[in-house]
């Protein structure tokens, strides 16, 4: 065996898949799941790709599984909503090569728009679900997921949470073993899900659940950890670690690795062996509700919240009555995330805010355009909803309101699910204006390639989607491109396109300020002419972290942050800010 190394949770998941002979991965990026696929892509043996969205990713992984390959698809919790359609029916078809579906939940919403609990999907789709508690388990369970998938003829859900996915802990790695690829055998009764066949497969699904329940009773994935029997904790994943931190050997544990289906007999025996049965699980009472339905008395959400992350201290307080003294520190100004200096989105949101338009927003870095001082967004729901939501808004609010409304969506998000909304705008005729903020990368998740960038996950050249041609092809006649560093051009385009009586698309094109070629071509920081600055604070309205205001000095540029985009100079009516990409005054 090789030595123990400190490994990132998501890297350990990829390592486990690799060791188990996985050869195919298709995913869509989403925090905190993204790195699983990125680490898989670093191996020579796993073909790994970014798909346009999670549904395409999971269906591609299904195809690879049919062809006999061990495969996985990874996504964040809300991504599984997009992929739910294939997931539920893949439960019926089962697999050929082992197939794992990695889903990363985000309790506490560090980087998400909701706090949904993916364990409901395991119950709903009647699929086995594994949940690791540290990086070593990430590796071991990833291997187990592909094996169980083949053994029980089911895609296996692999649940992560942020604190497991994004923490490093020691992992002992092993060698890769690649089982021979399973031969494909045509079997329409299993793989063609039309009613007559699906009825038979539903019977198979229910039988499989019974087999999985029996397996759950004996598998070492579910284990009892001895301790003081006055408190018996049932927990999985990160919640197990918090409980162990809080209680140590002052409690006994039933640590679940297979979180669906549950081992009823094992739980019953464990419950009988302790004075108090406590279910510790973040978010929804998924385990607790099932244990109550077994008729076993237990405590859970009466003691703990359904909201946010747990802490060891909260568990100690609830179960042991232990409280810790904390020091009161005078509060300091908040530090919300901001658009980076030189971000191409900044100017667009400044103009949108200035024109007081209704802005239907979407998911990406540009969601930050909702924050002050830009404050440009009216709504953000989910991937693609900016475009389809704008259509409904325009239809219901009337023509006048429609002409004061736009949608903003990034290039990757547009391909993910914005294009279908645009087709609806054309087909059902609303005079909507859609801004595609094309920064040539998937930004927020940390720079992933997408179908618009001309490169694949493995950095191989690929055909890039021509967004202008695509919009024309679905029937949008008015398509124009503007540079977001030219505020006057952005404003003109917005005024003209919102006034039009037909659908229009403005492609706002400039690459992300953090992309290597952009960084290499950065201009020197702008400079402020002290005497020319009239202290009007106009340059403060763009919300750039590189420029601040001093009562005595006026505008002050932080030369370590400024990338010379010149947007602030375009705001200055007195020509006090010099340098950068332009000095036009609007």
């Amino acid at each position: 065996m090789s030595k123990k190394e400190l490994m990132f949770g998501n890297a350990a998941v990829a390592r486990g898949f690799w060791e188990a002979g996985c050869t195919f991965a298709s995913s869509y990026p989403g925090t905190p799941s993204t790195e699983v696929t990125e680490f898989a892509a670093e191996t020579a043996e796993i073909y790994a790709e970014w798909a346009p969205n999670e549904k395409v990713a999971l269906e591609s992984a299904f195809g690879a599984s049919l062809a006999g390959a061990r495969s996985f698809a990874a996504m964040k919790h809300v991504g599984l909503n997009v992929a739910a359609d294939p997931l539920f029916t893949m439960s019926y078809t089962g697999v050929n090569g082992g197939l794992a579906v990695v889903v990363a939940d985000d309790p506490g919403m560090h980087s998400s728009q909701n706090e949904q609990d993916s364990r409901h999907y395991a119950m709903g789709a009647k699929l086995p679900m594994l949940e690791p508690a540290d990086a070593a388990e990430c590796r071991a369970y990833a291997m187990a997921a592909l094996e169980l998938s083949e053994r029980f003829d089911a895609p296996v859900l692999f649940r992560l949470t942020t604190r497991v996915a994004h923490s490093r802990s020691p992992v002992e790695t092993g060698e890769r073993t690649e089982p021979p690829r399973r031969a494909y055998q045509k079997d329409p009764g299993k793989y063609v899900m039309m009613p007559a066949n699906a009825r038979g497969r539903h019977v198979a699904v229910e039988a499989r659940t019974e087999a999985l329940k029996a397996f759950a009773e004996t598998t070492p994935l579910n284990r009892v950890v001895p301790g003081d029997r006055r408190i018996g904790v049932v927990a999985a994943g990160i919640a197990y670690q918090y409980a162990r931190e809080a209680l140590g050997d002052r409690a006994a544990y039933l640590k679940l690795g297979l979180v669906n289906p549950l081992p009823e007999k094992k739980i019953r025996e464990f419950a009988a062996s302790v004075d108090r049965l406590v279910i510790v699980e973040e978010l929804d009472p998924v385990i607790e509700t099932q244990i109550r339905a077994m008729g076993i008395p237990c405590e859970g959400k009466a003691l703990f919240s359904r909201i946010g992350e747990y802490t060891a201290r909260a568990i100690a307080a609830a179960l042991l009555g232990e409280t810790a003294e904390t020091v009161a520190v005078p509060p300091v100004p908040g530090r919300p995330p901001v658009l980076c200096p030189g971000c191409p989105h900044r100017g667009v949101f400044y103009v949108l805010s200035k024109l007081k338009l209704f802005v239907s927003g979407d998911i990406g870095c540009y969601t930050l355009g909702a924050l002050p001082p830009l404050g440009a967004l009216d709504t953000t729901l989910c991937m693609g909803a900016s475009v389809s939501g704008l259509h409904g808004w325009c239809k219901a609010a009337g023509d006048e309101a429609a002409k004061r409304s736009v949608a903003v969506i990034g290039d990757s998000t547009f391909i993910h699910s914005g294009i279908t909304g645009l087709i609806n705008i054309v087909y059902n005729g609303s005079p909507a204006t859609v801004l595609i903020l094309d920064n040539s990368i998937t930004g927020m998740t940390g720079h992933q390639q997408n179908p618009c960038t001309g490169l694949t996950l493995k950095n191989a050249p690929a055909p890039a989607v021509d967004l202008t041609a695509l919009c024309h092809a679905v029937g949008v006649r008015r398509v124009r491109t503007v540079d977001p560093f030219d505020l006057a051009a952005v404003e003109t385009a917005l005024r003209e396109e919102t006034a039009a009586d037909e659908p229009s698309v403005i492609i706002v094109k400039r690459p992300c300020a953090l992309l290597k070629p952009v960084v290499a071509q950065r201009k020197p920081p702008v400079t402020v002419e002290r005497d020319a600055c009239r202290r009007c604070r106009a340059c403060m309205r763009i919300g750039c972290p590189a420029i601040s205001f001093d009562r005595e000095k006026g505008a002050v540029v932080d030369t370590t942050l400024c990338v010379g985009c010149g947007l602030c100079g375009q705001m200055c009516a007195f020509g006090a800010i010099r340098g950068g990409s332009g000095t036009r005054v609007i």
Partner: protein
Amino acid sequence: MTELNLLIVGVGGQGTVLASRILGEYFTAAGLDVKVSEVHGMSQRGGSVITFVRAGRDVASPLIEAGGADVIISFELLEAQRYAGYLKPGGTMIVNTQQIDPMPVVTGAAVYPDNVRETLAGLGIHAVYVDATAEAVEAGSAKAANVALLGAASRFIGGSAEAWEQAVLACVPARFRELNQKAFALGRARA
């Protein structure tokens, strides 16, 4: 050393992740169980960021709670005050004197506190102030400020200079070795 809890706080983009990786490498090489918890995604865009590093015989939770940190390394002055409540009584804060205005300060909605040092002193906190950017520039590049800070912190964590150097070298690309070695040594010597 049975258990050590370290907090690294700062502003997204300041290089806190590299510092946490070096610490993780250092404790792993020392034969300890280690958990390092980072947050990626939205907060990396110039927001307040916090990384937990825990080392000991058997580390369960990857998180550190209020009053639980032996050492806090703050990459930015105001952030030191924000997270001061995490410090254990008797712990040490290593504070970079760099100031980065948060957006509410930039827009004029809030004022950057001018008395962070006095506030921390008033709370009875042992704080060591470091001009890590200057030290890094002296070493060759402002980008190595994170490693200079870590050098200062290493004095309060313990261990030999050699062991620390090994950990630094294991985590930085070959072409930046000399720069980071220098920055670490400067930070360690002056703290």
